[in-house]
């Protein structure tokens, strides 16, 4: 499953970077992850409840940050297992400061599915990818605006 997207976030790159490095925020914005628990440097135990139409399931696995480049980006490796199948996603996230208040976030990666998900989900897989992408950015925007509001 190919995952890619670009989105302009209304925040300076420093702010976006801080949020990306914060496990609480990360858990809130990464679809298919609902909680993160630090187990090692940049490695987390990840849990999720996913519900997408006919598919629902609880996933557990881990999330790790690799290739960390301060304010430039990192690679996000999410491995999730469930009864209906497993997912293994490696996503490269890159930040580009547009101006003092805007940051462009680009990601590009691939999620490998196995089990029932791979076998029976083909028909809607691109829709799922699109939906996850949209969710990711919407979550980020929401987290940002929450953050801004709390600052105000």
């Amino acid at each position, binding site marked *: 499953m190919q995952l890619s997207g670009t989105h302009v976030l209304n925040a300076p790159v420093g702010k976006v970077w801080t949020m990306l490095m914060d496990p609480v925020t990360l858990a809130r914005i990464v679809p298919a992850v609902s909680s993160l628990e630090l187990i090692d440097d940049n490695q987390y135990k990840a849990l999720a409840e996913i519900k997408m139409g*006919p598919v*629902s*399931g609880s996933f557990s696995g881990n999330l790790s940050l690799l290739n960390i480049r301060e304010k430039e980006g990192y690679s996000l490796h999410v491995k999730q297992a469930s*009864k209906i199948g497993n997912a293994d996603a490696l996503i490269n996230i890159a930040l580009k400061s547009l101006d003092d208040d805007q940051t462009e976030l680009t990601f590009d990666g691939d999620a490998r599915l196995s089990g029932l998900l791979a076998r*029976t989900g*083909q028909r*809607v897989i691109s*829709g*799922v990818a699109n939906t996850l992408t*949209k969710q990711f950015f919407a979550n980020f925007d929401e987290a940002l605006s929450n953050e801004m509001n709390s600052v105000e």
Partner: protein
Amino acid sequence: MITYPFEYKRASSVAEAVSMLAEGGKALSGGHSLIPSMKLRLNMPDALVDVGRIPELKGISMDGDELVIGAGSTHADIADSQLVKEKLSLFAEGAAHIGDPAVRSRGTIGGSLAHADPSADWPALVLAANATIVVTGPNGERSIPSTDFFTGLFSTALNDDELITKIRVPVSAGSKSTYQKFAQPASRYALVGCAIVKQADGQVSVAFSGVSDAPFRDTDVEKNLNSGQEAGPVGKGQSIMSDNFASEKYRVHLASVYLQRALEAVA
């Protein structure tokens, strides 16, 4: 194949169904989307509320200028209805293209809309027809315009504790309509489904299934056509699906071809 265990409850009225849904679980109508996914264990509700025998959900009638279809009407009920054929042939034509005969005999319009499969046929039909989805929840009844109903992949404006009770569709004299479908050869879902309603004054509404994460009205195409222009590109701004049977590029092409075929059919 067997589903996970769940509790089966049968509701005899809308009120009872809504109160049962408030305790959790999913509504079971024809079950032709829900049960297959539960058998594959992709879905595991704790309870199913069978709404299949609620008399209020049945029946097709006219109410003023609106055709009112009970949400529990099966695809076959609608395909075979003399009233639907007369007043809104689009729905009869579209319903006849869903699944296979056994699916049409059990699957319901309400169940299909609630499931909101991006490749199902009903969503494009209700969108093009400007239908209103009437739902009942703990706080009573509300009406959702079809254009607000589909919110994403398998996602709708329907809350978990609400039940679709009927679909109201405006019917206007002199309108023409069609549903043109290119079926995925294995599942027979729409790779592209294009529904068009053309009013007597020539204004068209155009909706697609199968093309994007969610069914949609193509407002750009409508704007172009309604101002006498060529249709222009289909699915602008939509995230186009791709799968083993149709890449993004091919899907968009098919959508354009099927739009043209639909326009010819209502010319």
